[in-house]
């Protein structure tokens, strides 16, 4: 696509803010314009930075953690935060800071896996359902059926059937979050398939697979990306809730949900076993939600004032 010159006023304003840097060269018609809008939004920059720090600390947990997260030390039971263990220890003497770092790995991994898998599955089902009306009823009624359950209850029920474990948590949450994505992609597909460029693609004899891949999918992408950030946030909360309820990841594994379960058990005696993993969880989910909001503003030119 040829780049159209930005209107003088907008270009001038950008120039002023950016001091003529790289960003100002991305005009409103560029396909990378949303990146510029995202970087100009302070909320996006702050939440993106927090998210990046959390991801990095999870990746480098083995290097950052001062202790083995599963090492029991009966001498150091339930010590308050101090210089040697700055988030304190739990009732069997495990270092909470190390456990929070390792717990982040589980949360983030499950968030990413569930997001990618349900995005893939939801996109596939949504595009088929929207493009081929003969499959529409069967697929969408099943999705509606799945959405008729309160999501956490459905996840619990699936977990009881499958048994505990991280892989099963992912599977259960993919089943829970795919319908919302399928519904979203279907509605974009229904609109897009009426567009003239899809019709002309069909008239020159392009195969359906190519039409879906080259014309429908790229144009349905922006709402999908926004939805994906929210799905990963929901999945992270859901995983923690499942572990908290005893229907999630194996109780021995350090996860934030498991730690909060212990934290609640100890609540009358100590605040630190619950507060630190809980705060980490809130920070992660909050940064994902804020980033999702900022992405929506950046990708959707209509919803700017909302």
């Amino acid at each position: 696509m040829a780049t159209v010159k930005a209107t003088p006023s907008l270009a001038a304003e950008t120039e002023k803010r950016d001091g003529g840097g790289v960003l100002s060269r991305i005009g409103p018609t560029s396909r990378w314009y949303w990146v510029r809008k995202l970087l100009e939004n302070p909320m996006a920059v702050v939440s993106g930075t927090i998210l990046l720090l959390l991801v990095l600390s999870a990746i480098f947990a083995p290097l950052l953690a001062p202790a083995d997260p599963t090492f029991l030390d009966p001498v150091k039971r339930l010590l308050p935060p101090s210089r040697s263990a700055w988030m304190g220890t739990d009732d069997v003497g495990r270092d909470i800071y190390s456990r929070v770092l390792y717990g982040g790995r589980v949360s983030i991994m499950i968030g990413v896996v569930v997001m990618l898998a349900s995005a893939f599955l939801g996109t596939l089902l949504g595009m088929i359902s929207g493009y081929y009306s003969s499959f529409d009823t069967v697929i969408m009624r099943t999705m509606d059926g799945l959405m008729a359950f309160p999501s956490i209850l459905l996840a619990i029920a699936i977990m009881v059937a499958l048994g505990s474990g991280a892989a099963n948590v992912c599977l259960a949450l993919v089943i829970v979050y795919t319908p919302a994505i399928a519904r979203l992609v279907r509605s974009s597909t229904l609109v897009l398939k009426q567009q003239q460029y899809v019709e002309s693609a069909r008239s020159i004899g392009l195969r359906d697979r190519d039409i879906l891949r080259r014309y429908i999918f790229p144009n349905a992408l922006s709402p999908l990306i926004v939805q994906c950030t929210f799905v990963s946030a929901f999945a992270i909360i859901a995983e923690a809730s499942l572990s908290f309820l005893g229907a999630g990841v194996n109780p021995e594994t350090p996860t934030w949900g498991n730690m909060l379960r212990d934290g609640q058990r100890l609540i009358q005696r100590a605040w630190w076993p619950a507060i630190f993993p809980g705060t980490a969880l809130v920070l992660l989910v909050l940064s994902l939600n804020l980033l999702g909001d900022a992405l929506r503003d950046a990708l959707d030119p209509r919803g700017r004032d909302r």
Partner: protein
Amino acid sequence: MTAYIVRRLVMLIPVLLIVGTIVFSLMHITPGDPAAVMLGQSAKPEQIEQLRDQMGLNEPLPKQFIEWFGGVLHLDFGESIFLGMPVTEAIKDRVEPTLLLTIYALFIQISIGIPAGIIAAVRRGKFIDRFLMIFSVSGAAIPTFFLGILLILFFSVNRRWLPSGGYVPIQEDPVAHFKAMLLPAFTLGFASAGLLARLVRSTMLDVMREDYIRTAFAKGSSERNVILRHALRNALIPAITIIGASVGALLGGATVTETVFTIPGMGRLVVQSIGRRDFPVIQGTVMFIAGTYVIVNLFVDILYVFIDPRVRYGDS
């Protein structure tokens, strides 16, 4: 109108059928024999065989489904071997706490969410707007169980103002009942209140741009009058959908909240059955809650037609 309501009632059947199929198939996606899973590793083969017979697992699958779903329609969810009673009995004992908790949480959602949304919209872009919206985003980011733990820590461990859990039936002692339910209801309603506030804010902003609002201002109505009589009424219509939809989130969230505050409701029944892998109880309770949610949403849809005369559902 009647035709519409009848049509919606008829549509309830396929929805419940699909929901039932999903719940029914849960037991059959278990790797291995559900009867063996339920009895644990120490079970003898004869015991497993006996339970299989009792649960009807030796019947052909379609027959099992028809029998189970037929029971569901009569609110008969089978037997729980662990509790030694019909699942329906177990649910009946635990409906009241969950129902009341959900209603109180709805009340909190509405009484915080709607005023907050209006204030944010009216003072748009001002400090109070930003503050309320940040509050509402955080509401969605704090998992219910962590909020519950924070409130317990603050209000019952540190200050001893409110109990940290338990349940008192309202007939027994209304004061103790409300004291015990205050923290759980707030915990459960807070996240949905944030969601509702955001929606009310954005619909209010849309409505304030309408011609009839300008007309109302032009004829000399006060700002207060315009907002309360003209704008709010119209802005609340979409809010009803969100409130209806959040009943599902609240019923699900009740599971977590009941566990945090040790309230003997349906959600806690489900959670207690996880470790025992008591399939009939879990299937029955999940089916009951999902069914309730489906019916609530049906009522909301019908209510919608009554409230908003602009929504005219045709017969097509």
